[in-house]
């Protein structure tokens, strides 16, 4: 029978080996999306290009919006400083959704210092992929018979359609054309260390199992569940999002 001290040492050693092995065996991280962060490395600085002359923030924003109002399409105006999302068309505010919280979320390694490229704001983004549509229902008669007016019992030709019970989700993501995603949430995202640690462990576990998930940078807005549901159908393909800069 092995001595307990020996068993303990063997057990501990094997666990440490497994832990270390996982680190060593982990394949290199795939190339990151444009908005993702990179570890700080002492590299030679490239000579900075002089930026084009810019207008002040209010003028930049107004000029971007002036470009949008030439089209009859809807657009959404996200103003983090005022914590509102406005539904607009031709410059008219059709609806205002108050935001409980606005933040940017970037996927970074858990430890260490990281720098991220600065997001140029104000900016125009477009919806590249709508959120999944939960409310669509398809109906199709199996066969069509010749029309017989005497058969029609209804008071009028307009069919009564029963309203659908299915509600859109209250948390979802919308893919944007700049590689970012807009996360519409019904709860403020938990980003304290413990929550991040749990998330990182889950991600690491998925990574070990070869499940590669993309972690694009997010603009996360938190609204009430009802507001999240009523916004859902507005994120159609190519809907434009005008984003103002945060508080300076």
């Amino acid at each position, binding site marked *: 029978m092995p001595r307990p001290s020996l068993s303990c040492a063997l057990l501990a050693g094997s666990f440490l080996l497994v832990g270390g092995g996982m680190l060593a065996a982990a394949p290199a991280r795939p190339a990151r999306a444009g908005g993702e962060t990179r570890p700080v490395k002492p590299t030679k600085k490239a000579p900075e290009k002089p930026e084009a002359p810019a207008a002040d923030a209010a003028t930049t924003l107004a000029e971007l919006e002036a470009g949008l*109002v030439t089209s009859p399409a809807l657009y959404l105006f996200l103003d983090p400083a005022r914590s509102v999302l406005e539904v607009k068309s031709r410059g008219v505010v059709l609806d205002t959704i108050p935001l409980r919280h606005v933040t940017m979320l970037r996927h970074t390694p858990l430890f260490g210092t990281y720098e991220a490229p600065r997001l140029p704001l104000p900016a125009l983004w477009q919806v590249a992929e709508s959120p999944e549509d939960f409310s669509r229902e398809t109906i199709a008669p199996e066969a069509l018979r010749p029309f017989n007016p005497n058969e029609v019992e209804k008071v009028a030709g307009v069919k009564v359609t029963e309203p659908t019970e299915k509600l859109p989700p209250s948390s979802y993501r919308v893919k944007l054309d700049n590689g970012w995603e807009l996360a519409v949430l019904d709860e403020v995202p938990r980003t304290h260390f413990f929550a991040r640690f749990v998330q990182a462990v889950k*991600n690491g576990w998925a990574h070990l199992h070869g499940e590669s998930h993309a972690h694009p940078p997010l603009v996360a807005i938190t609204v009430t569940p009802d507001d999240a549901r009523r916004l859902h159908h507005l994120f159609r393909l190519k809907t434009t999002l005008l984003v103002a800069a945060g508080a300076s």
Partner: protein
Amino acid sequence: MATFDGGDSTALPGAAVTPGAAPLGAAGEAAVEPRARRRWLRGLLIALAALVLATAGALVALATVGGAYRAEEVPGPRAAVLAAAPDAKRLDRAESRIKAAGPHAGYIVVDTYRNRLRFYRDGKLQREAKCSTGSGIVLRDPRDGRQWVFDTPQGEFEVQRKVKHPIWAKPDWAFIEDGYLPPPSGSPARFDDFSLGDYAMYMADGYIIHGTVFPNLLGQRVTHGCIRLGDEDLVWVFKNTPVGTKVYLY
């Protein structure tokens, strides 16, 4: 003296017995047992500590591989934008373009999620009414797979014409939905003088603001894309909406 590697002088056979100590035998074995238990307990505690440490190490390794989302403030304007001097002329020009694009008289706004129609004049709400809008249902023609999506569109529209006692020229889908083959165009079965109510305001692409024969469904998404209003609201909106009025659907 007991040591972690199992050494225990009193337990060894042939070891010297100190004067007054109990001789080895049943009593000696009884004394060895608690020591062995202690040894095992100690071993177990060390194993547990090693297990905890190893698990923590594995979790840290996983977390290091996995990474997580970190929150950041939404950035303010770029340094160049902040440094730029306010250009009143440029700002005025942009704001004038925005203002010019908007409506210049009364306008209608339809919220297709809450099914509410609002009428504004000079930016002030004049009337709010329950309405019905597109159900979002997709209808498929079993013969050729042709599809119709019963959505109310989004964006800016305009009232192009107004009609009292409108007659609805029923499109194919109105028959297919009921399981009928569409009659030929021009057939009397195509014309319905009842369903649209007493007034209709026609917009582009066949979308109409009209009355309803199902007032109990007002406030719900049940239509084929048109906007249905109750009788009283329909009369008011019809009277206050000249041709050319802008309609904003969202």
